């Protein structure tokens, strides 16, 4: 019987899904994902996890429970750092510890460390994980190379529409990848906005190279990878004339957002005051409340465009750079 490895659909899963799937499948194991987040998963997660923890981590616990009795091994890597001189947030670094102590009756857990900061390469950590499944080093290395290839294809960043279409509006949505892609958690936010006829760009669509010029002006180097991505995307979109508004999707209890968001909003006020909305997801947010806020926001954008045709009602032109 083939070994079944379970990968919970939460947190960094959304960014590196293809990599791990290819890697494990090449090693000849069956990969099982937990289902998309649903009510039960959320409920279980809230029950299992410390109360003060952030929402995505809580939901992650729910996914783990979902998989616990269906698989032979659980994959919860300890990802400390994936980029040069950057870390992930402490919760992600300590995720396996948290999960192992909060969820009882777990199967064995693949929880090796990937620490690019210290070792400057990923392969070591990945190979160590592979060794838990197969003892054949060369097979593991091959699987690693194959998985890496898959990763390169992923980086097809989307372009911002350059023609200023009178009829269409473009909104940038920024936030952690998992906040943007877990549609249960964010209550189908992106679909809703698209449904209103808006074009949507997200923070995952901006490449490092584009954000770098803006980030280099930030006095203190941002040492969280996720924070850097979000702030970079925010600053980048802020300087694009075709962006009509920015939505920051943050979540209950997030430590990174708590400092990045105020920084960005102050910067926005100073440089280019375009419509800006912060949506903080938590388990109690009702969908109705979200809809009202969203509609008001979208209306404001439409209204501004129609007025700005005559007189500049906002500082966009004056402050643009």
């Amino acid at each position, binding site marked *: 019987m083939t070994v079944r490895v379970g990968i919970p659909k939460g947190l960094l899963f959304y960014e590196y899904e293809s990599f791990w799937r290819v890697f494990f499948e090449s090693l000849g194991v069956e990969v099982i994902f937990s289902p998309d987040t649903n009510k039960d998963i959320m409920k279980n997660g809230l029950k299992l996890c410390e109360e*003060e923890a952030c929402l995505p981590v809580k939901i992650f616990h729910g996914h783990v429970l979902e998989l616990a009795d269906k698989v032979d091994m659980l994959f919860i890597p300890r990802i400390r750092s994936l980029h040069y001189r950057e870390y992930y*947030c*402490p919760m992600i670094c300590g995720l396996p510890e948290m999960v192992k102590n909060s969820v009882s009756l777990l199967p064995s857990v693949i929880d090796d460390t990937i620490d690019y900061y210290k070792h400057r390469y990923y392969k070591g950590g990945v190979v160590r994980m592979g060794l838990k499944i197969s003892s054949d080093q060369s097979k593991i290395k091959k699987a690693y190379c194959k998985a890496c290839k898959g990763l390169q294809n992923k980086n097809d960043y989307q372009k911002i529409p350059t023609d200023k279409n009178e009829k269409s509006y473009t909104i940038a949505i920024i936030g952690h990848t998992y906040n943007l892609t877990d549609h249960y958690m964010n209550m189908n936010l992106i679909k809703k906005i698209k449904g209103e006829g808006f074009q949507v760009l997200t923070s995952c669509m901006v490449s490092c190279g584009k954000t770098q010029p803006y980030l280099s002006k930030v006095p203190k180097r941002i040492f969280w990878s996720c924070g850097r991505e979000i702030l970079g995307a925010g600053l980048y979109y802020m300087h694009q004339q075709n962006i009509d508004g920015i939505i920051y999707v943050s979540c209950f209890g997030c*430590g*990174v*957002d*708590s400092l990045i968001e105020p920084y960005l909003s102050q910067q926005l006020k100073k440089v280019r005051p375009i419509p800006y909305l912060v949506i903080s997801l938590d388990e109690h947010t009702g969908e109705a409340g979200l809809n009202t806020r969203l509609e008001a926001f979208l209306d404001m954008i439409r209204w501004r465009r129609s007025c700005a045709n005559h007189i500049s009602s906002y500082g966009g032109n004056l402050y643009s750079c």
Partner: protein
Amino acid sequence: MIVSFPHMGSPVPYKKIFECLGHDVIVPPVPSQRTIDMGVKYSPEFACFPFKVLLGTYMEAIELGAKVIISSGGHGPCRAGFYSEVQQRILQQLNMSVEFIIFDSPNHGGYQDFWHNLIRLKGKSSWFHFMRSVNLVYHMIHILDQLERQLEIKRAYEVVPGTCSKTWEKIQEDFSNLVNVSKDLKAIENLSKERIEKINVEVPGEDEKIRIGIVGEIYVVMEKNVNMKLEEKLGALGVEVERSQYLSHWVDYNMIPKWIKHSHEEAILKKGEKYIEINIGGHAKQTVGHIVDYKERGFDGIIHLMPFACLPELVSQSIIPRISQELDIPVISFSIDEQTGLANNLTRIEAFVDLIRNKKRRLIYNKCVAGL
């Protein structure tokens, strides 16, 4: 420069070094409810608690006329490194602009900034004088910590309640007023020791003693005004206390290059490895390391302090039940936020101490019975 600094433990060493270097020093008021309220009001909701108290402290310091704030930063996975960027902007919006000088640990890169800051701090004094002042304060920190350690033990057995706390105040005053050059240190140290000698104590038998270690995030462990004066409270209940964080340890670990001195912290980190493999930022790994260390040294219980919304301590909190079980040592956690008053928690603290006391008595009783 008119400088100020945040409180964390005794303010004397900070004050001394800036004074020695010829700056005007404003010692901000100790964190009070007002400080906390102001900080909370203007901070982002999910900023961690130390962020909020520090912001409040800065605001009070600025009210008193501070122009430059000197503090420490970090590059770790945790938020402390980004504190000042955001605080600076919040203060700007409130029209309370100040300049920040942030010292990041040179052990983790960033020598250039460190150097630059040192030069600013040095001001007009000569390098010789600068080194002499640093040396003075470095030794002072170590001496003060040792004295405080002695008091933390004595406090449990003092005859007149409050004597130790008063003595500690006096000692700090002496160091602040009478020490100007390294030569004075010895004399004042002896004077302080005499003061401590003079405290009347009634020490019970070894079996009756209770020792509790306080672990957790550095700010809430060290700053007694935000942690409900926990040490004094425990002392009043007849408990010997040791903190996991002392300024001297922090300085040794963060400011002294590893090739000069191996710090105490490194040994502690090693002990924590079994439970948290990697350093996840903040003091989570120290927290678990210290629990192991205290157990090895025969402590009877642990109090774990975590600031509200502190990410690393959340991780350690979730591991603590397992450690407590494996090592058979009682641990209690307190989450510290703006509403944490002693009144709400006193009963919990007392109950915890009772639990430990009973456990210990039972153990001794069982031993006696077995011995017969």
